[in-house]
């Protein structure tokens, strides 16, 4: 399938799921009425539901999914590791911890961007640590094990901060930060996260050409004039912005970045650079679909969307490990 045709198809899929997400909810609104209220206004209740409740939810699912899919493709290409993914290598958990630290200490109330700044710092720190480890020991296994260690540490620190909070609700919010959700988010959350995520995506897409060169090996890439240090900075900053900003408002959502690049790779020319956009779009579609599923499966008692992505992703992860004894790329 040609690259542009694949992207067009995925765009249509994302659009369809976005619309479906806007039309599903406990308030049974007519599809035409709701879309009219979204665009043109009209009935007060319908307008509030569409604009203030469902729109931010759909936008966040789309954007966070896009960022996770994109980051998965970038990390898999850059690290030349089929198991790399923000959730598995501990970036999401570290971002969660950064956000938790800022939010529950009350700093988040002080400045609009304090919350994503905390998550960004956590995400960036974890990427730097992982790249340092990966640079020294290149094996797939080392990176994944380091990720497991980072995820456990960040998860434990998150739980610690939440348990120490004097607010009795805080300790029940562990599940949100470890298995994210886009339920009842507001446009405020969109304004906090979206600009930063857009900046992150731009940096990552910019690294695409260098990723292609990397697939030939580091020396060949250097021969082609690719600046290793610059690419590394692009990847660190891009992943930290995309994952950090998203996690700050939705909690850690795992496995999207793992599953999607593997699903779309056979449909591309298998170059890491041309995998970026399809993976982003695929991630957006997957998270939108998962978020629709949580609303349909148990209405009224919503699951966290991170539960669904983990239910899909974890068995996939196991299957990949079994398969990686052979050849994946």
């Amino acid at each position: 399938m040609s690259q542009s045709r694949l992207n067009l198809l995925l765009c249509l899929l994302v659009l369809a799921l976005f619309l479906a997400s806007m039309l599903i909810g406990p308030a049974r609104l007519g599809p035409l009425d709701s879309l009219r209220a979204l665009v043109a206004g009209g009935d007060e209740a319908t307008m509030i539901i569409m604009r203030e409740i469902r729109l931010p939810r759909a936008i966040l699912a789309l954007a966070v999914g896009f960022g996770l899919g994109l980051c998965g493709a970038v990390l898999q290409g850059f690290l030349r590791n089929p198991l790399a993914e923000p959730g598995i290598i501990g970036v999401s958990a570290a971002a969660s911890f950064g956000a938790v630290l800022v939010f529950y200490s009350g700093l988040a109330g002080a400045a609009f961007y304090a919350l994503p700044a905390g998550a960004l710092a956590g995400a960036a720190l974890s990427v730097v640590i992982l790249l340092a480890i990966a640079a020294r020991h290149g094996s797939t296994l080392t990176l994944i094990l380091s990720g497991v260690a980072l995820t456990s540490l960040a998860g434990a620190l998150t739980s610690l901060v939440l348990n120490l909070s004097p607010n009795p609700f805080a300790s029940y919010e562990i599940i949100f930060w470890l298995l994210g959700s886009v339920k009842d988010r507001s446009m405020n959350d969109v304004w906090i996260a979206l600009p930063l995520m857009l900046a992150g995506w731009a940096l990552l897409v910019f690294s695409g050409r260098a990723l292609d060169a990397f697939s030939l090996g580091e020396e060949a890439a250097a021969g082609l004039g690719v600046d290793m240090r610059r690419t590394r900075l692009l990847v660190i900053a891009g992943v930290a912005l995309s994952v950090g900003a998203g996690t700050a408002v939705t909690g850690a959502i795992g496995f999207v970045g793992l599953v999607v690049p593997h699903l779309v790779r056979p449909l591309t020319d298998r170059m890491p650079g041309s995998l970026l956009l399809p993976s982003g779009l695929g991630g957006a579609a997957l998270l939108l679909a998962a978020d629709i599923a949580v609303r349909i499966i148990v209405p009224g008692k919503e699951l966290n969307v991170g539960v669904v992505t983990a239910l899909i992703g974890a068995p996939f992860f196991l299957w990949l490990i079994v398969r990686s004894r052979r050849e994946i790329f």
Partner: protein
Amino acid sequence: MAGGGRAHLFSPAGRRWPRSGRTRERHPAFRNRFAALATLALLALPAHAGEAPARVMSLNVCTDQLAMLLAKPGQLVSVSELAGDPSLSFLHEKAAAYPRNAGTAEEVFLARPDAVVTGTFSLHNTTALLRRLGFRVEEFSFEQTLDTIPREIRRMGGILGAGDRAEEIASRFETELKNVEASLCGPSPTAIAYDQNGIALGSGTLADSVMRAAGLRNLAAELGYAGMAPFPLELLVVHRPDIVILREPLTEAPALADQITRHPALRALKTSHVGAYVPPGSWACGAPAVLDAVRALRAVREEAAPCGKAPSG
């Protein structure tokens, strides 16, 4: 956590009675240690027949309210830790004068009270253990409505040997409640008590009976929600209740739980009265302070639907 109630995710109930899970974990060691001491304890404990207990310990924030109201000076040995929490304990200022307990059997054993008052809902293991150790434990049900409050006041009075004072408080409560209910007029606006995490207080709750006494229709109860139940924000917007009763944050420490009470969708409801109308802690427990909640909601009702006029929305 024992029982794993999903409600724990949303409600402070898990915190209000926080010990059940932990006590269960400790239980075996606990039992062994105390089994040996039980005989000693029985010898040391005074008999509890006839006269009022001289030293009483309250293990639950709701029994705290009644005990602080009725105990004679020096009679109440300690109250629960939550008695000092303004969002759950209306008499939190009064509670400052009492030592606090965390509701564990160890503390009771060391304090050796003549009687223990606690909730049926809380501390099942602790209650059973204390009874085995020979303590007199009086349990109070927390499935309360306005109608059960006078009975609970009288019962606490009986336990504490303050029957006259309890009778006085209980009958004053009944009279005032009757006066409020008699003065109801005109239409009943709809209302919803919308707590942290989007939990609504449905039928069977104290809040439900308070709303009805204040002349309001409880939207959550009418839609079939019972007890403390998650109520979708979308449904709230669809039904546009005339009054949305929010709850103040429990502490200054932030939590995501409070975000829903600040959600732009609630602010956008132009025809609804939205606010934290009920004085903090006033309807957390069945105690005379509940009348303050009734009066506060009466005032909002007057504003939302003055007598003789149709409710807005």
